[in-house]
């Protein structure tokens, strides 16, 4: 019977999730960011 020689990773990857703070930062960043394109140049504007 074939043996599997490779080691199993210690932590299963399925349960891994980024920190809540990271996700909430991304959502707020997305809300605050607007990109305006003027003549092939894009300007990023972040609302306070």
């Amino acid at each position: 019977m074939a043996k599997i020689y490779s080691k199993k990773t210690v932590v299963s990857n399925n349960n891994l999730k980024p920190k809540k703070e990271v996700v909430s930062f991304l959502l707020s960043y997305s809300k605050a960011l607007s990109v305006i394109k003027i003549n092939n140049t894009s300007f990023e504007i972040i609302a306070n």
Partner: protein
Amino acid sequence: MATIQLTDALLVQDYVAGNENALAVLIKRHESKIYGFIYSKISDRDISNDIFQDTFIKVIKTLKSSSYNEEGKFLPWVMRISHNLIVDHYRKTKKMPMFRETEEFSIFSIMSDDALSIENKIISEQVEVDLKKLIEELPADQKEVLMMRMYQDMSFKEISEITGVSINTALGRMRYALMNMRKVIDKHQIILTN
């Protein structure tokens, strides 16, 4: 009520149209896959979080600037971005390797304090004093060349110009100066080591 699962493509479309909730759904849907992928390569939770964040910042910027070409491949595209950021991360750390203290590896094995201990400092000062005394014993012409070479860090060309002798003479005087000093050291059995 049954909830209809919108496809990634539709969510992306919604998000580009201004629906911020669509991004939340997209992140929720793929976060464990993307984060797991990053973590599998990095094995550090904090760095993985940073790369995850940078990945989505790129995603958000690209989507908001309408330069994303939807071909029904949202997840592979995000994975590609995170893959590139992982490569960047390794490039950076290669240039500036980071060492972490483990049981087998102590950070102090590669870090050391170059400063001399008090005892060594005293010895070193004593050696300097002895050396100066030895130099004082040399004939004037040899002493002059040795001082210029060792203490003023001048080249033999400069020494020869200043003293008005040829380079060979300056070299010869230096040689004799060292030989004479060695002789005195041997004769009196002076120890000049730290």
